[in-house]
C-alpha cells in the first residue's frame, strides 16, 4: 500500500545531489583497488597451480641441480604466501619481474607492446562505430523488412564468427586473392625503419608516422591496419548494430516520439533525430565491456596478422611457458579493463545523471 507521503516522494522529480558525481567517481575509483587486488591474486594462484615458473619453462632442459639453483635464485623455493606478498608489493611498485625467456623486465614488454594493442583496439572501435551505428539505424528504419532481416543476420554472423577464421578469410580475399592489402604486420619493413629512426617513438605507429611527416608512411600504416581492424571490429560492430536497432525501435515507442509522429514528422527523421541520440547512451556502457572483449580478441587478431602487440606477445610467451611474462601481461590487461570500465562508468554518469543513484 502506498501512502500519500510515499506517493509524493515517488512523484517528486529526482534532483542530482550536490557533489553526487564526485562521490560516485570516488566510490568507483576505490572499487578499482579490490577489483585489481582480486584479479592479481587469482592470476597469481592460477599461474602457480602447476608449480613454479622456472620448472615449467626450463624443466628437462637443465640438470636437476642447476634447475634447483635457478629456482632458489628466483625465490620460488620459498613458501607460496611469501612469494605472493612479494609479488603484490612488486605490482604496486610497478615491478612485474623479468621474463624467463629473454630476461627483459615485464614492464618494458608491457610498455613496448601495449601501445600497439591500444592502437589496434582504437581502429577496431572505429570500425565498430562506422559499421555498427549507421547499420543499426538502418535496420531500425527498415524494421521487419528484408533489409532489417539481412542486417540482423549479418550482425549475428559478425559476432558469431571466430576472429581467427574471419581474419584468415579476409587475408585470403584481400591479400592472397586480390592482392590489394598487406598480409601481416603493423607496417611495411621500410616504413618500420623510418619509424625506428624517431628519437622518442610513442609506439603508436599512426602518430609516429605523422611525426616523421611522411604521407607514404601514414598510408602504409593505415593500409596495414585495415584487415586486423576489420577482423577485430566486426564482432563489436555486430553487437552495436543489434543494440542500436533494439534501442531505436524501443525509443520510437516513447510518448514524445509518438507526439512527433502525430505532428507529421516522417519515420526517417524520427529515427535520425528523435530516437538516435537516446539510443546511443547504452552504447557507452557497452563499450566498457567491449574493451575487455577487444583485448581478448586482440590475442587472436594479433597472432593471425602478426601485429606485434601485447596479445601477440602473450601467445608467444604462453608457447614458451614463460609464466612470469604471462602473469604480468594478464595483470596489465586486467588493470586496463578495470580502468576503462571506471572511465566508461564516469562518462555514462555524466551523460545520464540517473546512473549515479
Amino acid at each position: 500500500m502506498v501512502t500519500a507521503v510515499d506517493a509524493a516522494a515517488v512523484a517528486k522529480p529526482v534532483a542530482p545531489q550536490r557533489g553526487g558525481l564526485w562521490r560516485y567517481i570516488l566510490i568507483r575509483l576505490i572499487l578499482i583497488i579490490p577489483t585489481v587486488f582480486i584479479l592479481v591474486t587469482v592470476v597469481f594462484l592460477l599461474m602457480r597451480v602447476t608449480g613454479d615458473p622456472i620448472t615449467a619453462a626450463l624443466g628437462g632442459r637443465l640438470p636437476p641441480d642447476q634447475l634447483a639453483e635457478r629456482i632458489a635464485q628466483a625465490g620460488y623455493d620459498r613458501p607460496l604466501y611469501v612469494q605472493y606478498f612479494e609479488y603484490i608489493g612488486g605490482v604496486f611498485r610497478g615491478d612485474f619481474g623479468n621474463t624467463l625467456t629473454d630476461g627483459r623486465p615485464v614492464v618494458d614488454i608491457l610498455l613496448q607492446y601495449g601501445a600497439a594493442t591500444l592502437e589496434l583496439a582504437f581502429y577496431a572501435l572505429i570500425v565498430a562505430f562506422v559499421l555498427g551505428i549507421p547499420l543499426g539505424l538502418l535496420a531500425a528504419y527498415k524494421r521487419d523488412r528484408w533489409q532489417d532481416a539481412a542486417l540482423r543476420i549479418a550482425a549475428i554472423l559478425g559476432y558469431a564468427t571466430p576472429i581467427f577464421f574471419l581474419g584468415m578469410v579476409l587475408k585470403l580475399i584481400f591479400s592472397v586473392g586480390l592482392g590489394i592489402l598487406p598480409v601481416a604486420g603493423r607496417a611495411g619493413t621500410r616504413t618500420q625503419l623510418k619509424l625506428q629512426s624517431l628519437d622518442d617513438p610513442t609506439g603508436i605507429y599512426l602518430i609516429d608516422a605523422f611525426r616523421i611527416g611522411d604521407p607514404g608512411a601514414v598510408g602504409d600504416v593505415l593500409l596495414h591496419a585495415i584487415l586486423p581492424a576489420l577482423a577485430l571490429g566486426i564482432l563489436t560492430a555486430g553487437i552495436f548494430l543489434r543494440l542500436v536497432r533494439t534501442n531505436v525501435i524501443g525509443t520510437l515507442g516513447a510518448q514524445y516520439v509518438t507526439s512527433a509522429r502525430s505532428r507529421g514528422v516522417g519515420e526517417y527523421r524520427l529515427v535520425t533525430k528523435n530516437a538516435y541520440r537516446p539510443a546511443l547512451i547504452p552504447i557507452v556502457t557497452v563499450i566498457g565491456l567491449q574493451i575487455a572483449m577487444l583485448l581478448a580478441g586482440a590475442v587472436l587478431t594479433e597472432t593471425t596478422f602478426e601485429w606485434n602487440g601485447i596479445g601477440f606477445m602473450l601467445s608467444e610467451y604462453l608457447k614458451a611457458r614463460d609464466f612470469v611474462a604471462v602473469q604480468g601481461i594478464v595483470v596489465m590487461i586486467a588493470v586496463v579493463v578495470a580502468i576503462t570500465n571506471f572511465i566508461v562508468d564516469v562518462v555514462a554518469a555524466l551523460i545520464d545523471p540517473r546512473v549515479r543513484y
Partner: protein
Amino acid sequence: MSLHHSTRGRLGLAVGALGASAILLAGCAGGGGDSASGGSSDEPLIIGTTDKITSIDPAGSYDNGSFAVMNQVYPFLFNSAYGTSDVTPDIAESGEFTSPTEYTVTLKPGLTFANGNELTASDVKFSFDRQLAIADENGPSSLLGNLDSVAAPDDTTVVFTLKNGNDQTWEQILSSPAAPIVDEDVFSADAVTSDDDIVAGNAFAGQYVIDSDSPNELISYVPNPDYGGSLPAAANGGVTVSYYTDASNLKLDVSSGEVDVAFRSLSATDIDDLSSDDAVKIVEGPGGETRYIVFNFDTMPFGAGTAEADAAKSLAVRQAMADLIDREAIAEDVYKGTYTPLYSFVPQGLSGATEPLKELYGDGDGGPDADKAASTLEAAGITEPVQLNLQYNGDHYGPSSGDEYAAVKSQLEEGGLFTVNLAQTEWVQYSKDRTSDVYPMYQLGWFPDYSDADNYLTPFFSADNFLVNHYENAEVQELITTQASQTDEATRADEIGQIQQLVAEDLSTLPLLQGTQVAVVGADVEGTTLDGSFKFRYAPLHK
C-alpha cells in the same frame, strides 16, 4: 538547414571522405611506403625469416636465429670462406698447434670495434673466459668442453690450452657459436649482456653493425667499414631483417616483393608453389640438418629395462624397421625434394661421410624390403606383430612432421610386421620426456654447431651422449676419442667411416633425411651463398 538534411549531408561527407581516404592511402602507399616493387638499389635489402632471436650475446643463446645475427656483426678467429665448409683465419693472421695441447693464434694488427675500441688478444681471452664463466643454459659453452684455459701474452697473441691434445675440431670450434669475439669494455664478464646494451655500445667488429634493433621484429644492419677480417666487404648498402611468425605470411611477402630474400623456414609446399613463380628464384645449398628416429635401448620393445628384455630381439626390431623405411618416398612425397634420403649418421658432403645403411638394410640400394624385414624378425624368433610406440613433435621440426611420421607409420605397418602407435607431444614437454625414458622411440633433428663429421658422432654415440638413450659401445667410444685428435686426414676419415659402420650395425638411431638449405630470393637478387658452413651470409647479397 534541418537535421534531416544535416545528417544526410554528414553521411555523404563521411562516405566521400572514406573514398577519398582510400584513394589517398593507395597513392601514399605506392609512393612512400612499401611498394610491391621492392627496394631500389640504394635501399637496404630486406630478408624475411621465421627464426627467433634468443639473445645476441654469444654467451646467452645457441640457436639458428641468434647465431644468424652473430655471424654478421661479430668477428671470428676462424671462418669459412664463401662456398666451402673448411675454415681459414678470419681476424686471425694464423693459428696452429704449438704443442699437442697448445693452440696459438696470432691476430691481425690494427683491429678495432665499430665503437673505436681496439680489438686485442685481451678481448679474445675475455670472450672465451666469459663463455665458460657464464655457462648459461641457453648458451653454447658446452662446445668449449676441451678448453682448459686461455692466455694473452701480448696484444696479438692468444694461446689456448686444451685438455685433449691435437683436437682436430678446434679450428671449427673457433668459427662456431661459442667463438664470436666481443668487446670487453661493453660485455659483462659474468652475466649475459642485454641486447640493448650491446647495440648501444656498438660493440661490433664483423662485416656489419646493427643500426637499429627491435627484438624479433626488425633489425637493420649497415656495413662496418672497420671490419678487418678476411671475408669480402658487403656488396650491398645494408640489410634489414624482418621477423615473421607465420611462414605463409613470409611466403606471400616474398612472392609480392615485400621481402627480397626468404630464408628459413618456408614449408616444402610453399617452396614447391613458389618454384613456378617467375618473380622469385629458389636457391638450394647443402644442408647440415639431419632427421632421425632415436631408440631408447631400455624402453623400446625387448629393451634392457622391459619385462621381455632380449638384446637380439631388440636389435632385430631396429633392423627390421630400417628394412622397411622408404626414405626416397618421404623426401619426395612429404618434403617435395627439399630433403634428401640419409643413409648414415654423417650427412653427405662432409669429409668422412659414408652410406652404410644403404647396403646393410632394405633392398641393398636404399629402397625398402618387406621380405627382408620379415626374415630379420623371424630369425630373431619374433613371430607376432610388434607394437611400436613412436613419438614425434609437431611444433619444433616444422609443420610437415605430422605428414612425415604418418608416412613412417604407414611404411612400418607394411606387411603386418608392426603396429605403430603414433603420438605427438608439444616441444617443451617433449624435450623433458625424451631424456626421461618416457618414449621408447622418438623423432629428433640436428643442426650442426660446426661443419665436421665429429659434430654428428660425439654428441650421439659417445658415453653420456645427449640422447640419453642408454647406448654404449666401447669400440665406438674409442674410435670417437681417437679421431678427434687424429692429425692424418686420411686416417681420420677412415676412423669416421668405421664409426658409422659400427653404429649402423647397432642402430642406436635410424637416420631418415638430410635437409637442404633453401632460400627464396627475388628474381633480381644475386649473391645468395648457401654452403657447407651452414652460415647464411648477408654480405654477398645484392641486386
